[in-house]
């Protein structure tokens, strides 16, 4: 069964005036089709306001489709009774770690989700311990979350989602506020979760991060305009720039060298690939 299946998804934000009449309508999602297989790692790229976060909030049933169909693990997002099961199977991690932490002790924060699901106490203990171990924060279980670094806080937020035993995690720019080491910690955690079989949908503005994914979706004005492997997407340097996006620095370097007449492939995405390609030229 598909993890996520969206067909012709449409969502509109409406602006109301003082009298409650609709003043203007902004179509944030415009006939979006999306298919995500279980265990896939997807990144969504797009400029600010392209509809990425609106799409992410649909996967978690924070927003409901206006038109079109959306199925999460076979559950119809248009059915009221599916909202809670959908939220349990598709967890969400947001950009700002400080806004997601509610308890004064790390393990209590992680326990919040399963407690609300009505999980028995013994099992909560087990889930919390396991989640903290996965994100490598066991040593901090009795600490105050407020004194942790940004990367650590974000890992606690991920542990909180993991404790709900989701099939899929949606991360909306999880590294935007982090320093380089915090970013690395979070990305390593995400990669590990994906290896353990959890479907990952990550929104990011860092092209180097998007390279990790199995597939990339590019959104422009509420529509998915490109879908493909990182190599397929990033080799189209001109098109990406036209969409207000970017490519990893080494990809841009390959593109620049090619323009200057060097016989080099333009689907280079990582430093290692660039080193190999240049060594072959030598």
């Amino acid at each position: 069964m598909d993890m996520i299946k969206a067909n012709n998804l449409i969502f509109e934000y409406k602006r109301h005036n003082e009298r409650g009449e609709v003043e203007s309508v902004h179509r944030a999602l415009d006939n979006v089709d999306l298919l995500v297989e279980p265990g896939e790692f997807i990144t969504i790229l797009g400029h600010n306001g392209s509809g990425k976060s609106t799409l992410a909030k649909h996967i978690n049933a924070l927003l409901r489709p206006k038109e079109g169909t959306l199925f999460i693990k076979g559950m119809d997002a248009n059915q009221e009774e599916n909202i809670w099961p959908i939220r349990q199977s598709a967890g969400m991690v947001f950009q700002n770690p400080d806004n997601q932490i509610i308890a004064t002790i790390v393990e209590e924060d992680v326990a919040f989700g399963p407690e609300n699901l009505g999980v028995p106490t013994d099992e909560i203990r087990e889930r919390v311990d396991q989640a903290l171990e996965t994100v490598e924060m066991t040593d901090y279980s009795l600490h105050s979350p407020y004194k942790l670094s940004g990367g650590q806080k974000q890992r606690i937020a991920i542990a909180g989602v993991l404790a709900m035993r989701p099939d899929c995690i949606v991360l909306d720019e999880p590294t935007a506020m982090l320093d380089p080491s915090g970013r690395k910690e979070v990305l390593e955690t995400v990669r590990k979760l994906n290896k353990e079989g959890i479907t990952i949908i990550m929104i990011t503005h860092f092209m180097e991060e998007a390279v990790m994914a199995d597939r990339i979706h590019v959104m422009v004005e509420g529509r998915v305009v490109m879908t493909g492997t990182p190599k397929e997407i990033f080799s189209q340097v001109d098109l990406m720039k036209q969409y207000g996006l970017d490519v990893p620095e080494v990809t841009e370097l390959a593109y620049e060298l090619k323009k200057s007449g060097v016989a080099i492939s333009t689907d280079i995405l990582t430093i290692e690939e660039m080193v190999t390609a240049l060594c072959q030229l030598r």
Partner: protein
Amino acid sequence: MSIKIENVSYIYGEGSPFEKRALNDVSLTIEDGEFVGMIGHTGSGKSTLIQQINGLLTPTLGQVYVDGEGIFNTEVKLKDIRQKVGLVFQYPEHQLFEMTIYKDVAFGPTNMGLDQEEVDRRVRWALEIVGIDEEIFEQAPFDLSGGQKRRVAIAGVLAMKPKVLVLDEPTAGLDPQGRDEILAEVTKLHEQLGITVILVSHSMEDIARYVHRVVVMDMGGIRFDGTAKEVFRHVEELEAMGLAVPQTAYLAKALREQGMVIEGDITTVEEARDALLPMLKRLGDVQHD
């Protein structure tokens, strides 16, 4: 306008159980018209340091001079200092509060006691610099996209016509185009008006591309201070501090480890291309047309 930080130490919650020394005997001089980047991991003391520059925090020890004047002398009005040194916080869009974009930007200059004509001139000037069209001046700032909101917030600081502009992570959460636009606007302000700029960033690539001098903070002190090329030579030390170097600098390092001779310091795509092309040309891999 020059800034001189002299032997500044800052301790949060001195005498309490939560006492934390955030700055430890820091000295730093920034000359008039410099464009300085500041990097450091979360908690390294960057934000504490920049808050001393416009008097939001008072040093526990040491003195701060703006334009040669000690800002914590009793006769100096901090209000004047804060007009000269404009501070754009992280996520400045969270500080928008007025009913319209125009009013929000006008708030600072109005509070400075300027007449309405001058306020109007400044609001239009500031919004033009950040690329906000006159058509939307009367819209609520909350209806804008994230990138536009941030520009309005920056315009609010620019409208005070500061001589020094301090930006704390102005591009966090922006898409690549928004990032490039804001940094290009800052560069333009620096070049055309000679404003001194201090840019705090977690993006090593942006630092390499835009600033002339990089100050690296770690554990409440300054660890490196030099051009981007000089600073990004210290790959291991920077990584040990939770930082990184631009991707092209890692590439140059990896190529050298493979025995290739790469001349000069590489920190941007252009530098990497210019260093690699002559070498590849010599090898005859470049087709001549």
